[in-house]
């Protein structure tokens, strides 16, 4: 993996300028926000280098890259710095040719951005669950809140899939479809996905919004809260489909290594960030 390099800590020398033809991402191997940016870099086949930062022991020079020392940050060969994971991902999609991850259609673009709003509580809630569990605390309320957020996403999935399909149908066919859906929901329960053929948040193919969501869903298992998806079959189908995506697969973090990192991280061990790297 491109990011399997030792992290830079306090006292380290800053890396030199970014060579032409390359873009650099300041990252951390287990950070979900940086994961978004790495997914986009990979999906678009962008030549890049990864500089990992020791988040518990940040190099002084790093504050010249980001005022608060956060990751991810992109740095290009013109010394331009871009931060906030969503902004970085959009920048990469705009600046680099090839496969566009955001749709061309302005309305569909706006839809993806509206979907991101639906997701905004998930990162905080998953982190709180993780911390609670790791500190031996109860987190039933947090898990309930997280499940509710997943239900909102599930509902949106089913609505948007229908709308997408409906836009191709005549009014009579649309009405029939709505009645059919209601019938299936009543008789067949939540497992109505058989007849729906768009499995990703943006349509038939994986797109930006899927990559922006993915890192937190990948972490549910290793955080010990995978059961929060128990009542959301469309979301489970989506995670299964995501795991088939070559980009997602290529960056999938080994569960044992992640657990090793988490163990050290919660012991406040600054070596946590390099766990699992060959010496």
């Amino acid at each position, binding site marked *: 993996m491109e990011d399997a390099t030792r992290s830079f800590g306090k006292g380290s020398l800053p890396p030199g300028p970014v060579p032409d033809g390359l873009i650099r991402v300041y990252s951390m191997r287990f950070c979900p926000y940086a994961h978004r940016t790495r997914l986009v870099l990979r999906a678009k086949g962008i030549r890049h280098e990864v500089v990992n930062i020791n988040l518990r022991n940040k190099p002084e020079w790093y504050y010249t890259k980001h005022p608060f020392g956060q990751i991810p940050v992109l740095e*290009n060969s*013109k010394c*331009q710095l*871009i*931060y*906030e994971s969503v*902004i*970085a991902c*959009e*920048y990469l999609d*705009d*600046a680099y040719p090839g496969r566009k991850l955001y749709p061309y259609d*302005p*309305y569909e*673009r*706006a839809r993806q*951005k*509206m979907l991101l*709003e639906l997701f905004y509580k998930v990162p905080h809630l998953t982190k709180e669950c993780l911390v609670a569990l790791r500190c031996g605390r109860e987190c039933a309320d947090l898990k309930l809140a997280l499940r509710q957020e997943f239900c909102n996403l599930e509902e949106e999935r089913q609505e948007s899939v229908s709308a997408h399909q409906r836009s191709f149908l005549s009014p009579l066919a649309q009405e029939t479809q709505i009645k059919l859906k209601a019938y299936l929901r009543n008789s067949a329960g939540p497992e109505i996905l058989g007849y729906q053929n768009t499995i990703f948040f943006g349509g038939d193919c994986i797109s930006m919004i899927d990559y922006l969501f993915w890192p937190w869903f990948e972490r549910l298992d290793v955080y010990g809260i995978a059961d929060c998806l128990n009542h959301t079959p469309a979301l489970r189908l989506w995670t299964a489909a995501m795991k088939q995506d070559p980009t997602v697969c290529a960056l999938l973090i080994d569960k044992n290594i992640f657990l090793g990192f988490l163990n050290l991280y919660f012991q406040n061990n600054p070596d946590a960030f390099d766990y699992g790297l060959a010496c």
Partner: protein
Amino acid sequence: MSGSARSLAKGSAPPGPVPEGLIRVYSMRFCPYAQRTLLVLTAKGIRHEIININLKSKPEWFFKKNPFGLVPVLENSQGQLIYESAITCEYLDDVYPGKKLLPDDPYEKARQKMVFELFSKVPSLVTSLLRKQNEEDCSGQKEELRKEISKLEEVLTNKKTTFFGGNSLSMIDYLIWPWFERMEILELNDCVDHTPKLQLWMAAMRKDPAVSALLMEPKALRGFLNLYLQNSPEACDYGL
């Protein structure tokens, strides 16, 4: 393009579909977020109709336009709905011709979004100060607001330009303007007394045709705020 229409409240009939060639914005005359969208519509000369919503007595049908029940919302003649003020502004810039408010250059566009992030704590600070106006201790929050505003002053200082996106007015300026307009009207001016470049920026903004077309009447804003803080359903139509 009348923005002075009475707001629609609970029990009102839903409006019909949006006619071709027009875009509709669900708004409220004193909402800073909706003002962003109106600024972009005005700046780009987009033909639009405004339906004001009574935010203290929302029509049931409005939740079909936006499940969050918030303004602004755009609705086009294809029945497509777009909400979240920043998303509506970007959508309008993408769809409609004429002056582009967001830069084409990917880095400059990203820079505008980073400045937008820098601004992100200001709305809630201004709102909580507006609510506290009659109370004693706002000094803590005023300090916080000054701190956030200083970050913006730094941007202008580093860029050495009049506006946040360069030497001409662009999207980021419109996105942050509504709160600065309110700070002036509601006498939170001392929060910008240490930021000379911002003061120059505010003066330059007032000269912009879109900004000046949408400037609020100070008395009307104060009257609205007074009623709004008391949760009065008359607030949104104050002055009509």
